[in-house]
């Protein structure tokens, strides 16, 4: 059996950053496991700019950001297994993996970092009635077709859902000569970042229809059209509001789900709101020595946030691998209060500052206070939007005396 200090599963921005930081924090043998033939994860197909503004003070495209991290990981001497699919993970930190080059692998790791990312929700997960023709893609699959495989998936496109990838693809397909008829969003606010709505839709005169959804797909072999309907306050289609639209392609940008099949195999406790592992501020899961970062933990909006969790996971995984961790450790729950849909991390183990990522349940377009009690920290922000995670930091010193669950609320000021 192969033995390593830190094994990292997945080489997107989270995994690469974790591997680099594990090495920089003293781990000697860091192994990065990637199921694809190249490192970089989803960054490879995100050819638009806007990456690394916070972390590197640079406006990189996804591939540039990835290449910078890949070079850093090479310089650090991180070992990589490509084309390597992890098939099993145990709570005593043994990884089973398959690869054409290395065959069936068993790897014993002193600590593990989970960085498997997330998957897109598909048509069955939202249940659109109608036929089952070709021409229905998730936005990320279409992105890969266009940006890596060099195909245009269709010429007349309707986009359901206004997640960031859908918005980015509306612009991309328009540039490549397709007609994007419109983006239809069931909620009464956009799913993606405001700047993406402006730069991807408004810039190209692509209409965004809020409180609308697709209620039927038409076509036998290929998509021939869709029916869109307005929805009421309970998100139910309004009878009589149906409108037929002719199109050959439907893109779905209807949310992402952390990919935790391996976490479940290791018996890691998952949080129902984030659908990722229950995590401490050191990125440790409920299984000692297994850490998590990036979109497998909770779906983040910005790569900078993903990298931040990767850096913490790598550093604490290295520390665990070196044996510098006390045996019994107390920890406290961090729970969602008023107007909080989800938060990350969900436990506090008194080892580091508490950097909280909080997603609001309802939009508040006026100044808000994020209250963290105990210790009673109040942090002000200009607004709270469900599509833009709030990040707040409570210093370790303030939390030393905490004896009850930490509640996080978003209130109007």
């Amino acid at each position, binding site marked *: 059996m192969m033995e390593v200090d830190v094994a990292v599963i997945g080489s997107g921005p989270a995994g690469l950053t974790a591997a680099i930081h594990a090495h920089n924090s003293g781990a000697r043998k860091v192994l990065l496991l990637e199921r694809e033939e190249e490192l970089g994860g989803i960054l490879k197909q995100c050819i638009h700019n806007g990456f690394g503004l916070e972390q590197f003070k640079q406006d990189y495209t996804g*591939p540039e950001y990835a290449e910078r991290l890949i070079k850093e990981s090479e310089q650090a001497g991180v070992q990589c297994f490509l084309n390597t699919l992890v098939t099993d993970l145990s709570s005593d930190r043994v990884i089973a993996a398959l690869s054409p080059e290395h065959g069936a692998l068993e790897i014993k790791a002193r600590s593990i970092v989970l960085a498997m990312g997330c998957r897109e929700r598909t048509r069955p997960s939202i249940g659109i009635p109608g036929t089952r023709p070709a021409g229905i893609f998730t936005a990320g699959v279409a992105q890969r077709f266009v940006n890596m495989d060099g195909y245009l998936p269709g010429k007349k496109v309707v986009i359901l859902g206004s997640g960031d990838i859908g918005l980015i693809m509306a612009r991309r397909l328009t540039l490549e000569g397709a007609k994007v008829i419109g983006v239809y969003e069931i909620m009464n606010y956009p799913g993606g970042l405001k700047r993406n709505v*402006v730069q991807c839709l*408004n810039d190209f005169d692509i209409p965004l229809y809020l409180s609308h959804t697709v209620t039927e797909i038409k076509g036998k072999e290929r998509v021939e059209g869709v029916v869109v309907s307005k929805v009421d306050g309970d998100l139910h289609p309004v009878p009589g509001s149906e409108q037929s639209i002719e199109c050959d392609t439907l893109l779905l940008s209807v949310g992402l789900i952390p990919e935790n099949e391996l976490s479940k195999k290791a018996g890691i406790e998952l949080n129902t709101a984030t659908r990722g592992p229950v995590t401490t501020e050191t990125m440790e899961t409920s299984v000692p020595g297994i850490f998590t970062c990036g979109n497998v933990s909770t779906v983040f909006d910005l790569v900078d946030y993903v990298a931040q969790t990767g850096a913490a996971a790598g550093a604490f995984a290295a520390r665990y691998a070196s044996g510098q961790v006390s045996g019994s450790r107390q920890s406290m729950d961090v729970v969602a209060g008023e107007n909080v849909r989800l938060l990350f991390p969900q436990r506090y183990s008194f080892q580091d500052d508490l950097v909280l990522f909080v997603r609001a349940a309802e939009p508040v377009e006026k100044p808000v206070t994020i209250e963290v009690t105990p210790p009673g920290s109040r942090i002000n922000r200009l607004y709270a939007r469900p599509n833009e995670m709030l990040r707040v930091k409570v210093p370790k010193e303030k939390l030393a005396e905490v004896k009850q669950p930490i509640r996080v609320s978003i209130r109007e000021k």
Partner: protein
Amino acid sequence: MAVEKRHFVCVVCPIGCEIDVVHDGSKIISMEGNKCEKSLEFVSQELIEPMRILTTTVRIEGARWPVIPVRTDKAVPKRLFPRIMKQLRSVELQAPVDILDVVVTDVLHTGANIIATRSMPRS
């Protein structure tokens, strides 16, 4: 030009201020809705000539992938996007290509180069 009203969403930072601007075609007469002064520069530029970075792909021969991502190395007038896209359709690179290699020099006399945004070895 006559005085006009226009609505902008500022994208300088994530707040995305909704700004109402009264202008005469090139100069701002008044604006409201912006929370800081940075919007002024953004809106002024938007009135004269909206500038954006263009990111896209071009064909490549001899590599693992049939296309390689590229971008302009600085912002170019948004109105030129269709013409730049058209020009790039006739470009085909040969692998290997290194990240930041110049693919097209001074595209459409904008002063901007088209550069590769990843390296791609020969396969």
